[in-house]
């Protein structure tokens, strides 16, 4: 009881921070599971920008191409939105999207509770 009261007095932002960190941890776990499934234990850090052009799309494994094509068409999407287009589970799409981020094909941006994935098309500099 004393604990609950103590927790209630904790500033909300601390709890928010914990939730964000848990979500990040979840993202990373999904990526690791996906990488292990496809035997890509070697890729741990995001690669430098790798343009998502049509030749790259053509050379991708089918499961990733479907996800990448959906982001290309939609422009900017959460794992949930991609899953609605591909009719696959959100967790599966989340793993594929994070894998595409690691491969340098997609960018990821957090806005509050949601993670958005997109193709960075505009030229830098």
């Amino acid at each position, binding site marked *: 009881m004393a604990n609950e009261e103590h927790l209630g007095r904790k500033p909300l932002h601390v709890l928010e921070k914990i939730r964000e960190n848990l979500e990040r941890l979840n993202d990373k776990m999904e990526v690791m599971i996906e990488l292990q499934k496809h035997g890509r234990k070697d890729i741990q850090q995001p690669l430098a920008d790798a343009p998502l052009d049509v*030749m790259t799309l053509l050379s991708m494994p089918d499961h990733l*191409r479907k996800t990448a094509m959906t982001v*290309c068409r939609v422009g900017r999407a959460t794992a949930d939105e991609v899953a609605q287009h591909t009719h696959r589970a959100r967790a599966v799409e989340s793993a594929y999207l994070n894998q595409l981020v690691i491969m340098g094909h997609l960018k990821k941006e957090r806005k509050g509770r949601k993670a958005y994935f997109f193709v960075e098309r505009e030229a830098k500099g």
Partner: protein
Amino acid sequence: MTAMAKIIAVHSYKGGTGKTLLSVNLAATFAKRGKKVCLFDLDFRAPSLATLLKVEKSDHWLNDYLNGTCEIDKVLIDFSPKVGSTEKLFVGLANPATEAIRDMSGKDRKWEMRALGRLLALRDSLLADMHFDYLIFDTSPGLQYSSINAIVSADLVLVATTFDRSDVDGTKRMLRELYDLFEKKTEVVLNKVLDAAKSRKLEIEEKTKDIYQAPLLGVVPCFCDILRAEGSIVFAHEKPDHPFTRILDEMASEIEKT
């Protein structure tokens, strides 16, 4: 976006299979049916629509839109008055100047990625905002960046092919290794068919379906009139009673059904 709105890419494995003839006449056919249509020349290595439609100068080309130096409305040329007062036909042309062709041949992967983004954006700008019913992409043959960008952006790919052996083999490979990978709805148009008498129609249709294992949209016989016209006639507009025009009309009906 209306439910009927569509982006159609006309593609082939080899050159000379009739992509441009098919694209121009299909666009004119849809326009005659009251649809608002835009025809694009995406063959930047060998642009042909500017010559075919006798456009010598343009302030903005499709090249400029893909380069990000202008918006798509600047590129569109209203062809409606030339085909009929009630028809709504627009064109977006590739720049036929040698320098422009050289420039487009030297683009890198990042540019091609941005070009894909700009082609995909036409769905919003032209279909949704400007209420076009059909966008038709006339592409370059084979596995060129511009063609694959067009295929990825399209709802339907029309594959123009002939019974030429190398074309058949290449088209079969593309069906399996290109259109299928992008999960594109694909229809075959068999062109330049010799001896396409009505009695052989079923035989030709079965042979084509058997070879390609893909739906057949239409069979176009080898018409001497088309060769004689030397690309200067839009049959769908100028020869409404020609058998080719009738075949195009049937194809348009099939596309509208899907």
